[in-house]
């Protein structure tokens, strides 16, 4: 996501997503051929296409390589603590219900240290869009084993290969109650963008897994070649199976990755249920928090 | 600690021990201009058999919130009597549910029994047994004015149940007038008919 230069005329061109990016912070921290930047670009494009009021969009990240995403988007951005992006985002959403709150963070952050928050937010069908960038390891700390590392793959803390069963993330999200579940690799730029755009237009707990194996650590430790080799691998082996049973989409080492939209079922969100319930029980006595939030102003 | 009255109220879970304590404390603190600090027991014992609340009533600020030995012991279950009965001061007042508690005679103590459960049953709602007890307590101890107690009952019970609870209170109070207790434990019991309307 560096500022691209037109090779023919040597003129600096503006990045197409520049209005949504904090260009003064570019170059970013991510390695060459890392998929995180791709996901940021897909998200920015999807936001622009969706036509939502960008002033009302908040992005929350946790800690790790993907945790830095909030810092590059020109939106209200919150770079929080490790694993707590979802509960922090819960506070934002409930504090000011009119906001579109997106959580963009990594696998270790959201389903490792933050796993409890992930399942409970899905269970509540909280109005959050969660984009999980799965790089298969802990990248920022140096390639340690993650709850997503495929069986047999090497990591810096599983030097003889991982023997723990990894999470099947779409299945985890779906069985916890997510109303929208999709998975794409960072090679599927158009589909990922479209999926994010679609999810922006929906409500409830929306989960999109973006598979983007760490080119620096995961690929090196597992002798998978360059970033380009990884792209080629996903190009050759990724399989799109919309509507697949999420029980069957687990990821094995160097096996085909099943992509697609697996769940898309609108059901009442946490706020819907809360409003309906209190309206029924308390009638006119119920005073909901206004969409613009519970801030007290001078009267 | 002059002008300080220490009270323990005990019974089994579901008898409304804490509400009884709340009403007495509220009557003193809100409706009678005194100081009253209530502490309820928490933890497993609050959910199980012997439930307890303590009150310190004083004319000055209550600095020490716990009781040491109660001046008044209100007991609505045999188990509560076994657990706390010995604490009561030598010259203290025992206020008890006479069908459920069978106290030992203690020289110097005043013992006041009331069939509060049966009286509550006669009103058609056993649940107001604790309020009958509060009325009886008001009558036999004279701790605060009856009117302060009535205000406290009114302000503490669920909306819509005020009349029933006030009736229960009056029954207890009436019973106290007829049977104010003895300086040793041998209770003469007026028949239920005598206190019925």
């Amino acid at each position, binding site marked *: 996501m560096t500022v691209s230069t037109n090779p023919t005329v040597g003129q600096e061109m503006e990045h197409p997503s520049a209005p949504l990016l904090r260009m003064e912070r570019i170059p970013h921290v991510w390695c060459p051929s890392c998929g995180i930047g791709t996901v940021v670009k897909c998200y920015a494009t999807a936001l622009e296409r969706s036509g939502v009021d960008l002033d009302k969009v908040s992005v929350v990240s946790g800690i790790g390589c993907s945790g830095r995403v909030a810092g590059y988007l020109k939106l209200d951005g919150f770079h929080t603590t490790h694993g707590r992006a979802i509960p922090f985002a819960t506070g934002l959403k409930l504090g000011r219900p009119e906001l579109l709150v997106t959580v963009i963070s990594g696998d270790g952050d959201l389903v490792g240290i933050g796993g409890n928050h992930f399942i409970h937010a899905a269970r509540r069908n909280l109005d959050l869009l969660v984009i999980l960038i799965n790089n298969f390891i802990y990248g920022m700390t140096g390639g340690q084993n993650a709850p997503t590392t495929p069986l047999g793959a090497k990591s810096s803390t599983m030097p003889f290969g991982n023997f723990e069963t990894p999470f099947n993330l779409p299945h985890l999200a779906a069985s916890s109650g997510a109303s929208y579940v999709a998975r794409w690799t960072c090679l599927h730029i158009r589909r990922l963008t479209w999926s994010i755009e679609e999810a922006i237009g929906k409500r409830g707990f929306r989960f999109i897994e973006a598979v983007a194996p760490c080119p620096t650590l995961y690929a090196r430790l597992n002798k998978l070649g360059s970033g380009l080799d990884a792209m080629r691998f996903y190009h050759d082996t990724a399989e799109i199976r919309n509507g697949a049973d999420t029980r069957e989409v687990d990821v094995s080492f160097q096996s085909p990755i099943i992509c697609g939209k697996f769940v898309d079922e609108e059901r009442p969100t946490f706020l819907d249920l809360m409003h309906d319930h209190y309206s029924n029980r*308390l009638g006119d006595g119920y005073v909901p928090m206004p969409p613009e939030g519970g801030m007290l102003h001078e009267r | 600690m002059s002008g300080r009255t220490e009270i323990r109220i005990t019974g089994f879970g579901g008898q409304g021990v804490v509400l009884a304590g709340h009403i007495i404390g509220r009557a003193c603190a809100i409706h009678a201009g005194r100081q009253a600090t209530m502490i309820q027991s928490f*933890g497993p014992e609050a959910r199980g058999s012997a439930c307890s609340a303590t009150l310190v009533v004083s004319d000055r600020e209550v600095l020490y919130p716990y009781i040491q030995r109660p001046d008044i012991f209100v007991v609505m279950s045999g188990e509560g009597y076994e657990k706390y009965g010995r604490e009561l001061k030598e010259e203290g007042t025992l206020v008890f549910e006479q069908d459920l508690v069978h106290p030992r005679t203690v020289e110097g103590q005043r013992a006041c029994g009331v069939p509060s459960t049966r009286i509550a049953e006669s009103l058609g709602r056993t649940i107001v047994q604790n309020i009958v007890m509060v009325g009886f307590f008001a009558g036999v101890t004279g701790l605060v004015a009856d009117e302060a107690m009535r205000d406290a009952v009114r302000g503490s019970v669920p909306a819509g149940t005020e009349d029933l609870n006030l009736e229960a209170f009056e029954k207890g109070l009436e019973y106290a007038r007829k049977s104010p207790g003895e300086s040793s434990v041998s209770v003469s019991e007026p028949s239920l008919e005598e206190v019925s309307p």
Partner: protein
Amino acid sequence: MKADPAGVLTGSHYLDGDFACGEGAMAAGCRFVAGYPITPSTEVVERISRRFPTLGGTFIQMEDELASMAAVVGAAWTGSKTMTVTSGPGFSLMMENIGLAAMMETPCVVVNVQRGGPSTGLPTMVGQGDVMQARWGSHGDYEVIALSPQSPQEAFDLTIDAFNLAEIYRVPVMFLMDECVGHMTEKVVIPEAEAIEIEPRRLTEKSPESFDPYQVEEGQLPEFARAGDGYRFHTTGLTHDEHGYPEMSVECQEVNVSRLVGKIRDNADSIVRFEEEGVEDADVVVVSYGITARVARLAVEEARSQGLKVGFLRLVVIWPFPEKRIRELAGSVGAFVVPEINYGQIALEVERAAAGQAVTWPVHHAGGAVHSPDAITEIIIKAAV
């Protein structure tokens, strides 16, 4: 500004400290609370969860205390006044995001109804062992404000003060109750809304183009923009520059930490609050707080009745600590006696502030009960010799 009458339950009530704290929060304008059940604090959120739906507030019971604290920090960035409530083990779990609140300079209130510890300890019984944790519990250097009520009435009054201080200094404020005050029912007078002064959230008046979330004029605090108003600001738990962007440098760290610490230390004279009585010609001054301060006054009365010159100082604000006053008194009194339900936390502060001019006598109690007044009197007599 004045309190919103919707949240103020004006009148005389017979309430326990936990309920009174909840009422104080609603009167102060708190409209978002996240919490997780834990004895002996749960009654605070039980009260709030019953009343919030009628006054535009949202309560959510989160999956744990980590989440509760994170949600409270997140919601504070929407401009809402926010609070979480916990005890012992839950307070430990909140430390991570209390640090985040401190670093992001997020106003919020954390209620800790202290019970006996360490670990699960005495869930239903009193303790005061979290005093140092309230100050230093999260890693790194920062300062907080902590208050300690001695009665349900103060649980109401000081909760309002806690919210106001959080706004003025943009800090997480620790509300250190104890089980005894939390579970003690007494008369609580709630005034008319008109009589309650509320510090509102002050939003920046700068345009989004000219606003930087951590740009600070000399001696001032950064201005606040809330999420969703078009400022498109960034904030982070990392060391950050005036734009709120991560900046890993010694210089930036110095700017950040010196502000987090300095905004409390430099304003300590305005924040510190204590009550004292009979200290001027005292030989011994008893220093205490929370429920222990009430019990200690009985000991002071007893010692005086024996002819001893005993003064009394009660900390209302625990952090920042009134070290100036203790140092002054240390010049004229022979000894301080510090009863507290722990093995010596504030006693160490008193000793530090006294700086060798007066002797400090702690009166330890491991927790589960309040001190017997006699135990305190005994130490006062020893200290007076």
